[in-house]
């Protein structure tokens, strides 16, 4: 058994103290929110200290900060089950009450059960979820390739259509701001493809100038992306980073705690 200082400290504060806290909380309701917040302060300070203190017990490969990171990856993995329980509850209720669209709820549940069964089977048999030794896909992989992948990329590709409809509707010269938006969008769009050469295609005498103009538009688009766009992005990032950092202080100190279902303030 490995009893490094960092590891033991982590277990003490993040496992033993909560257990004591739960025991106390059964008696004293006031502690039900106070102790989690105190532990939160500790957990929140670990990565901050780790940025500046390179000591082995804190930042080494198995120090407190990387170790806690690994713990929480596992915790996030477990959390998926919370979602699944909710989905199964909601959909089986729909089916049992024969609500409108119960058939589709059944389709959903069958898809969920079959795919996860393949995944669990692959894990249990150590076959994995990729390819079998003979190079043929596992059932999980087959479902991934034939159901999951095509649907995923098709929904993703709907964006091409929505880009066009949103552009048509939104890019109108209503006021100064909207006009600037419209012009920037138009210039960059035109600069990304040999649009002028396309338009000049039926007129051979225009080809050389169209090609030159095309190159110019391309350079202009790049410049717009680089300078005004880069500047605005920097401005947004700096402002947002300050806002995020100040929110982080409030969350770590337990001032902002709506996510725990507790009211604002003290």
């Amino acid at each position, binding site marked *: 058994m*490995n009893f490094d200082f960092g590891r033991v400290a982590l277990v003490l504060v993040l496992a033993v103290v909560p257990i004591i806290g739960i025991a106390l909380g059964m008696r004293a309701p006031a502690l039900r929110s106070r102790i989690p917040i105190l532990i939160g302060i500790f957990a929140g300070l670990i990565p901050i200290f780790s940025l500046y203190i390179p000591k082995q017990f804190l930042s080494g490969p198995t120090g407190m900060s990387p170790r806690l990171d690994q713990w929480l*990856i596992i915790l996030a993995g477990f959390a998926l089950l919370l979602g699944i329980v909710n989905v199964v509850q909601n959909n089986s209720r729909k089916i049992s009450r024969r609500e409108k669209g119960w058939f589709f709820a059944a389709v959903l549940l069958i898809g969920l059960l079959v795919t996860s069964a393949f995944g669990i089977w692959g894990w249990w048999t150590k076959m994995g979820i990729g390819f079998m030794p003979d190079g043929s896909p596992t059932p999980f992989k087959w479902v991934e390739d034939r159901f999951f992948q*095509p649907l995923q990329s098709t929904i993703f590709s709907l964006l091409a259509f929505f880009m066009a409809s949103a552009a048509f509707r939104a890019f109108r010269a209503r006021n100064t701001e909207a006009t600037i938006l419209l012009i920037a969008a138009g210039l960059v769009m035109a600069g990304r493809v040999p649009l002028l050469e396309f338009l000049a295609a039926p007129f051979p005498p225009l080809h050389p100038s169209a090609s030159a103009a095309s190159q110019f538009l391309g350079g202009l688009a790049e410049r717009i992306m680089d300078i005004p766009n880069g500047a605005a992005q920097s401005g947004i990032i700096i402002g947002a980073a300050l806002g995020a950092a100040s929110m982080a202080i409030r969350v770590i100190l337990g001032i902002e705690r709506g*996510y725990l279902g507790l009211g604002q303030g003290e």
Partner: protein
Amino acid sequence: MIQDALGIWIAALLTLAALSFLYKDNPFFRFAESLFAGVSLGYYVGIVLNQTLEPNLFEPMRQDFGQNWDLLVPGLLGVMLYVRYVPKIAWVSRYALSIYVTYYIGVEFTRRIHGEVLPQIGRAMLPLSRFDLPTLYSAVFVVGVFSVLIYFFFSREQNAVTRPIARLGVWFLMISFGAAFGFTVMGRVALLIGRLNFLLQAWLYPLFGITS
């Protein structure tokens, strides 16, 4: 072989069903969408089990329990998360939630100050001492960064000095949004091309025997 042809038909029909949403909501789309929701959730069960829990939890515990005994704690925290289904002691889940949230928020804090604020402000410190084109670009950049920052002042009413600067900042924001929108069209269209290619080459061309 038959399995493969079947697979292509399934993929092609699901693609069409998903695209049909563009016309309007219909039973085919609803079928595809429900199936997708279920299959995708099941997919992540497989992924989380095989690619998150196996290498991060089960494998290390099996290989060397002495070095990894502490990995039992996330299991404990996971149980605390589920306790919220027991209304009387639902508050126990706060422990897991609070540790999860504050740790990552600590990471975020350092990332913002260390990784964003300082380097970004440093990047804006450009020399403006000459009269040439690159200096003009630098000047535009500097003006852009600071006018956008002035737009983000909240605790003071804008006055005769700051109002025009903030307005300029909004203009920079608008250029940025328009340009980024225009820049993205190409990548999104490439996705659509990918789907059409699949329908044509894997499904339609072989179906009609077009090979050249």
